[in-house]
Every structure is written in structure tokens, then in C-alpha cells.
């Protein structure tokens, strides 16, 4: 599993959420509610392979409704990293995913 724009590569275990995998591997993932499908700060944007995750459960679906009407997300496919469980390898976009220890060796510059 690859997380852009930083290019972080994560080996996600079967049944594990994206955020849980990142935290297990020593990365900090942006969140306020720490996995309760409430704050939506952990959201990722899927650019392809939408079927690479298990379908969203009721809690995640409820939280994803909060993206409706937010103009930035018009036409974008969003999932919550704290809920979404990958079933296949893919690439997602999430800023702010960073290694906690040691300091990240490579970090892409911001887009602009």
C-alpha cells in the first residue's frame, strides 16, 4: 500500500485498517478521534482501485456523509483510513503521514 504524496509504503496485514497499519509501522496519521470514525481527519482520497478496500461499514458510511456538500470533495472518492481495510495493493493520497521514529529519510516537497 502506497501513500502519496510522501510515498510511504505500508505492508498492511489482513483485516487491519490502513491507519492501524501505519501506526503499527511507526507512522503518525492525522486524527483527532483516534479511530472512532467521528472526526474524519484521517480521510484518504482514492484515485483508482476503489475496490481495493472492503466496502464501508455503517459507521464509516455515516461519517462519509459529512463529506457531502464540501466542495473540495466533489467527485472525489473518499474513505476513512481508520476504518478502511485494504484487500488489494493500491495507492491512496493522504498528506501528513509521517514516520515518528526515526526522522523520515525522504519527504517530497509540497505540490506547489
Amino acid at each position, binding site marked *: 500500500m502506497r501513500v502519496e504524496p510522501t510515498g510511504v509504503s505500508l505492508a498492511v496485514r489482513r483485516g487491519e485498517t490502513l491507519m492501524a497499519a501505519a501506526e503499527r509501522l511507526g507512522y503518525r496519521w492525522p486524527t*483527532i478521534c483516534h479511530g472512532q470514525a467521528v472526526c*474524519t481527519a484521517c480521510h484518504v482520497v482514492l484515485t483508482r482501485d476503489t475496490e481495493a478496500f472492503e466496502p464501508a461499514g455503517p459507521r464509516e458510511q455515516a461519517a462519509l456523509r459529512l463529506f457531502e456538500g464540501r466542495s473540495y470533495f466533489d467527485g472525489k472518492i473518499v474513505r476513512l483510513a481508520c476504518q478502511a481495510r485494504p484487500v488489494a495493493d493500491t495507492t491512496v493520497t493522504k*498528506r*501528513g503521514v509521517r514516520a515518528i521514529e526515526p526522522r523520515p529519510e525522504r519527504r517530497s516537497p509540497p505540490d506547489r
Partner: protein
Amino acid sequence: MTSSKDDLSVREQSGMAVVPGARYTSQAFFDLEMDRLWPRVWQVACREEEVPQAGDFLEYIIGDQSILVVRSDAETIRAFFNACPHRGTRLASGTGSFMTSEIRCRYHAWRWNLDGETVEVVDRHDFPTGLCDDDVRLGEVKVGRWGGFVFVNMDPGCEPFESFLGAIPEVFASYRFEDMRFRSYRTIVFECNWKTAVDAFNEGYHPQGLHPQMLTWYDDTRFVYAQAGRHSLYGEEHARQEMGPSPRLGLSPEDYDEAELLADRIDAVSGLFSRSDRRLLEELQRNGPPAGKTTIEVFNEIRIRAMRDRGYDLTGLTDDQILRNGTMHIFPNLLGPIVHGNATLYRARPNGLDPDSTLLDYWALEWAPEGAEVPPVERKFYEDWTTKDWGLINNQDFGNLVEVTRGMKSRGYRGALLNPVQEANIIHHHRVIDQYLAG
């Protein structure tokens, strides 16, 4: 009664203020407020625009007390206890206008003029000759006016209105509340104490719990809190000059997408922008700011221009004043976020004599363009708040009121252990209430 008040005082524990839950939930404390706070405190009964013409009246209800606010003439607004001096009949209800500029009791047809002076006691000859007009004049309630708000006080010996307001008129002068008119007026019943509803809007400490979705674009850690006499305020010391999310997310500028933050900021105040503003904003989103400017600078320029286009007279205000957010609390029960040009104010009133029921008046006010005829506001009433979608933030705040109420009733609840900094205005509110209860 006195002993129950003493038991329910705000107490100190490890240098912090602890507010007993029973101040919110007990009938004894509520009764004490009904006895010593509400009959003696200046409180907002209505806006002047609700009684625009001579003869117009409005019934203001607080607990089991009904007060009649009456426009006596173009310059004068009076208030009376809403009870016939003869047999006690309530003289008028709701809103309306007294025909022929007289207040007439529906029961025995005694009449008074709009100043509350007796016009007729029917069959007066039956009464002893010693009966004088003043014996049967309407019981007067004191009136104070500021910023288009009509305050009333039931206590004839109350403190002067000006000393009650203290620094408020000066502190909030630039907001020109007197130039505002209702854009909407809704009253909602909540299963909570009136103070629970006040508390909900009296601190900016709760967004990370109740409104975490905002934190991706909104910095919730910049508020400063201050008390002004009986009242209080909090808000940003200066308008934001950067786009970042809440520091609670621990992100640095390369960790977030400015376009996403900008989009969410635009969405938050979307009602303000005209079609041409929207084109400019779309351009900003697409191309970023021109050289030498930041995104937020350009966004703020468009925002200020949109406010001017809306007819707001911003003369004499700095950009910083125009752009910063604040919340005003007028003791005991009127508060809400204000900016130059508009205000969202909540007035929380006990609903009858039930400590667990509150009437929350939810007022949207806005500067009216000069000389514009503003139609009278339609008042809407909601017995059950869940029958309407109030928008995400309100839904979260409203839904929480009942959760606080239920939790506070727990036998295991040891009282509100308040944050001395970010909940200082709630502590202050309780201390001022205690001043009234002690007297």
C-alpha cells in the same frame, strides 16, 4: 432554602472551581433562581423592532412570570406585569397591537392607557370613594434599552441599568447591534437546564470533542477569554493570517493541502458570496494567489468586499476587526458568536418551572441596509429539535444538551471540574449567579 444554596455553592478543590451538578438538576436550586435571580436581574425581553409602532405589545415569559412589553409612543417602551390588578387575569398573550391605544381586560373590561394609567374601572361608583387611579394602575416593570435590545427588570429597587451593563456598550459599540434586524427567529424546546444551554456556547474548548470535523481547517486554540462586570466574552485576539488546521492535528504546512482548507473556509461562509465573488474564489482555488500575496490574504480581501457588497457599512473598522470572530455573553442568558455585520444569538430561558426544560431562542441578526424596509420576522417554534436539520455544528451542540443533562443526574457525578482558562467564563457565570442568590 438557605442551606440548600450553601450546599450548592461553587467550591474550590485543588485550586480549581468545582460546580455541583445539582446547580443544574435540582428543583431547590432552580426555585432559588426563580426567587432571587430572575425577578431581580436585567434580562433581554425582546428587540425594539418587535414592538415598532405605538400600541404594539409583546409577551415576554420567564419561568411562570409573564411580562407585557408595550410601545407607548414612538420613543417610549414600557413593561408591565401581565396581570389585571383586579382579578389577576392575564391581559394579553403572544404579540399584537392594542386597539385604540388602550389595554382592556377581557374579564371585566377595566381599561388602561399605554402608560399603564387607569382609564376606566367599570362601575367605579360601587367602590369606596377612596379608590384612586394609582391603586389600580398596571404594575410596572423597569425597562432598559441598549443596542436595539429591550431589557426588563421586575425589581423596583434593582441596580441602575447602566451599572448592570457596565463596559458592554463601549466594548461592543462597533458591532452596532441597534442597526441589526432579525433575519430569523426560532424557539426550540430542549430537555436541559437553561445554564446547560448557556454553557454550550460559552467556551471554545469543546470543538475537538463535539465538532472534530472542523479542526481540519479551523484553529480552535486561539481564543482568549475575558470577563466584563457580570458579562463575558471570548474570541480571537487577532484575525488569522494563515490557513492551517488546528494545531491539535500536529501538522506542519507541507502536511496539508491549502486548496482543501480554502474550500472548507469558503463553504463555511458560503452564504456571503455573490456570483462574481465565487468566480474570484474559483480562480484562487485553481491558480493560487498572485505573486506577493498569500491565499488567506486574497480570501480575506474577497470576504471583506462581499460584506461591503451586502450593504455593511464597515467605515472606521480595521481589516483585523472585520475578520475576527468573537462570542458575547450578556448575563444571565443571552450569548453567541458575533462579527461586524451579523450575530447569532441564543437566549436560554427556563421553560415553566421545570429545571430540566429550556426554551432556546435562536436569533440570527444582521445589519439592515440603511433606509431598507425589513419585513417583520416570522417566529418559528420547535417542540422537538430533531424535526429539523440545523446544520452539522448546531446538530452536534443541540444533541449534546440532553447528554449533559442525563449525565449530570448520575449519582456518580462529582460536579463540573472546569478548565480554569478556557471555561473561565462558565465559572464567572456561576459566581455572578451566586451574587444574586446571596442577596
